[in-house]
């Protein structure tokens, strides 16, 4: 049973436009959520996080939105740049313990 799901395996966006990556979770006990970015042949790199007491967290071009009632979070990248092309993983945890990762979404930003 997959507790963290990223239903879109891939996404293509034009440079300068908004990229929206989605993530759904099933466990209502999760209260911390992270997004990681992964380039080929490298380990995942932490991008941005949000706790369940917030519904939005912003860091530069990256914004994460959390909808607790829908058990859904999304990552918005505005404006998208070719260097953003990577695989993005969301991760969820309870009490900041044992994060469970989604299967990833491959983002391709077209120049």
């Amino acid at each position: 049973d997959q507790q963290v799901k990223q239903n879109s395996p891939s996404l293509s966006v034009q440079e300068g436009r908004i990229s929206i990556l989605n993530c759904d979770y099933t466990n209502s006990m999760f209260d911390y959520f992270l997004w990681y970015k992964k380039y080929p042949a490298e380990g995942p790199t932490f991008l941005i996080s949000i706790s369940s007491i917030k519904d939005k967290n912003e860091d530069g071009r990256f914004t994460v939105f959390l909808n607790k009632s829908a058990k859904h979070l999304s990552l918005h990248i505005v404006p998208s740049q070719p260097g953003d092309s990577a695989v993005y993983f969301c991760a969820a945890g309870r009490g900041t313990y044992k994060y469970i990762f989604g299967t990833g979404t491959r983002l391709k930003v077209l120049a």
Partner: protein
Amino acid sequence: EAEVAQSPRYKITEKSQAVAFWCDPISGHATLYWYRQILGQGPELLVQFQDESVVDDSQLPKDRFSAERLKGVDSTLKIQPAELGDSAMYLCASSLDPGALRGYTFGSGTRLTVV
């Protein structure tokens, strides 16, 4: 910027052989994690250490996998005997405290191919 060091980067081994991976976390990071990422899937936690103690190894196939962090610094993950299904990327990560909201710092991983 401090990094998590892993070696080797790539490993090809025959099934039934033994294989070992090494990880050196960021200095001062008490929490160390080993993850396995099968192609097309997200990273899956195998084992979590707090200093030299195992905090969680519930997903570690203990009949063939072992992990140690003897002095609470670097760590070794071993597979014996390796099976074809063990082919994956093995990622080590560390953090100052468990589940830090700043996230973990991952190493570049060891890609294992079992033939």
